[in-house]
């Protein structure tokens, strides 16, 4: 199965893999060869590319879409994709602390838009910590 992860700054990952676990908008999506044609939104989270037995490549993705065509081609388009080696664990932790503190000061009921933005920042920081921790 061929997987491509494409961002506005280039193709971040491309290769033959055994499967992908993508953070779908309505729950994680496990995609194996022969999967039915699919087009789904993604949320901010970890996208795991399964290269083989016990060889997983975790990636940070921040929204975007996953597109399965013909059961053999998976295309993930996302604005941001990071590998563990792009991240620094301490920096990610600090970012998570700051983002959480900011979110705590925002009220969901009155500042809904701002809250969503900050919630996404927390999600992103959390994902970064998780991926950075796998190094």
């Amino acid at each position, binding site marked *: 199965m061929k997987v491509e992860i494409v961002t506005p*700054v280039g*193709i971040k990952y491309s290769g033959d893999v055994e499967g992908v676990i993508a953070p779908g908008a*309505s729950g994680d999506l496990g995609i194996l060869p022969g999967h039915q*044609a699919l*087009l*789904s*939104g993604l949320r901010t989270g970890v996208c795991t590319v399964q290269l083989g037995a016990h060889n997983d490549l975790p990636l940070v993705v921040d929204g975007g*879409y996953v597109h399965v065509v013909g059961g053999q081609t998976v295309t993930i388009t996302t604005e941001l994709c990071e590998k563990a080696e792009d991240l620094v664990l301490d920096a990610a932790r600090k970012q998570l602390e700051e983002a959480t503190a900011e979110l705590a000061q925002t009220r969901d009921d009155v500042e809904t838009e701002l809250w969503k933005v900050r919630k996404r920042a927390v999600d992103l920081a959390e994902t970064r910590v998780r991926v950075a921790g796998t190094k």
Partner: protein
Amino acid sequence: MPSLKAIRRRIVSVRSTAKITRAMKLVATAKLRRAQERLIQLRPYAKRVNNMITELAAGTDPEAHALLAVRPPKRTLVLVLTSDRGLAGAFNANVNKAAWNWVKANADKRELIELRVVGKKGRDFFKARQANVAHVYTDVLNNVTLERATGIGRELVAAYVDGHFDEVFIAYNEFKSAMTQLVQFERVLPLPQGGLDDGKGANSDEPRPGVDTIFEPTKDAVLDSILPMSIDVHVYRCLLESVASEMGARMTAMDAATKNAGELLGRITLQYNRARQSIITTELMEITSGAESLKG
């Protein structure tokens, strides 16, 4: 014939102009390389987004979504992409003229044509012609980001969805090479059938979609988020195309200016030497004729 001093002053001035144009050319070359790289990196992304749109649009009734539905064009919005700075050959003039000609040609066919302009050069051009400019974005091309493009894209989509406008066009310079920029005048809303131009022409080599595609969470939800996103990506690409074109045009213009300065310098230097020579000759003649007359 101008005095020696005047010619010398001229030489100095031409030489320093050449220095400036040469520096501007080098800067433009470096910036062009960076802009070109970003454009090349973006292309696969724009292509994938377009593939998804084509798949979605293929199985959707165009009337079903606001961004796909074609309405009779009465009110039109035109976004013109220009730069903040000049000295870039015909870069700004071409795109401004193309947009202005379209506006003049279609003014009596539409109830309203409103312009939104990126860049000070476009602002000044349309201000001088008293065009209906509703909004000016400045300081965009010298630092193009996806966020900025998204901001502009969202405003276009909002104005369209509100029903303020029935169609949205975008006029920009497409980057062909450092020597050639092609002015494009494209409709972005309602989204054209077959998707937006992704800068590489056709996208027909991709596998054709099946009809039994699953959409998550729902087809409408995917449409609602992906269609505005494709506009953002398109605006982003147009901005990057404009930056690359601007730098290419400036590089070419400044290269020509530097060459011309060199030629001019050669000519004035010749003139200077001639003038100097003739002064020396005159002096010599004065001396010899003075000596001759003393002999007598």
